[in-house]
């Protein structure tokens, strides 16, 4: 299932969106927001940027379920890995 045409203006719009998100993340640090709020903004922006790249540049919006599985399975495994390591964090504290 190949995706529909992705024109030069679509590419430029995607780039513009990524740059705006980059500015938002940078401002969260430059404006000296409270640390917890800044962290939410920073990681929210990073997730949004990854979504934009995946959806529009990597064409995930038009991929099959197999590709989605391949893309998301390692992310799920990494999250599981982080969870099983939480006892070690508690031990280190």
């Amino acid at each position, binding site marked *: 299932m190949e995706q529909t*045409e*992705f*024109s*030069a203006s679509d*590419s*430029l719009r*995607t*780039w513009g969106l*990524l*740059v705006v998100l*980059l500015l938002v*993340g*940078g401002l*969260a*640090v430059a404006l*000296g*927001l*409270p*640390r*917890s709020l*800044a*962290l939410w903004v*920073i*990681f929210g*922006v*990073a997730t949004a*940027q*990854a979504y934009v*790249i*995946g959806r529009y*540049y*990597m064409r995930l919006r038009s991929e*099959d379920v*197999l*590709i989605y599985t*391949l*893309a998301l*399975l*390692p*992310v799920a*495994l*990494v*999250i599981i*890995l*982080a969870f099983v*390591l*939480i006892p*070690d*964090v508690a031990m*280190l*504290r």
Partner: protein
Amino acid sequence: MANSAVEIGIAHAPHEVSASFEIGKLGMWVFLAGETMVFGGLMGVFILVAISRGGWGPDGAHVNWLLGAINTLVLFTSSLTAALAQGAARVQDSPRAKRYLGATALLGVLFLVIKAFEYAGDFRDGFTPLAALFWSFYYVMTGLHVLHLLAGIVVIFGLTLMVTPRTPAGWLERKLKYVCLYWYFVETVWVFLFALVYLAPSAG
């Protein structure tokens, strides 16, 4: 099997269109899944160690997040030129695709040059890989990313050299699909590295 692309799939009957996948694309996604585990594992451990220590404290405050932001902009622009190269290949404009590909590789080199200046400054200020745990993570994660970027640059430069006005459009479009997929993945990794290693330790 159009355009010599090898496809696999389950054909139910001769008249049915089977769900088929290009082997090259499937292989690239399997490779990227492995790479996700490598970078994801490193980032996961980095976050857990940061939590266990209550943040990175002054160790993480010395990263130059402005240089990191400039590099992020460079990578975003390189992905734009990569997408434009794909668009040019789709309309069978090989010379324009070649120019955009060359620009992508050059922007990748610019990223490496900025990173080299950044590493040199860090070393000059005494922030070596053995200076603190944060800096060990910093060099391992960003160094691994640099190696991936370097591999991408070599492949993109190679592909740029191979493109001639007589290059078959289907061949170029397919190669670009795989190469750009890798390049976008390296960009995605950097987005999270920038948030984790540059912005988060500088926040608050």
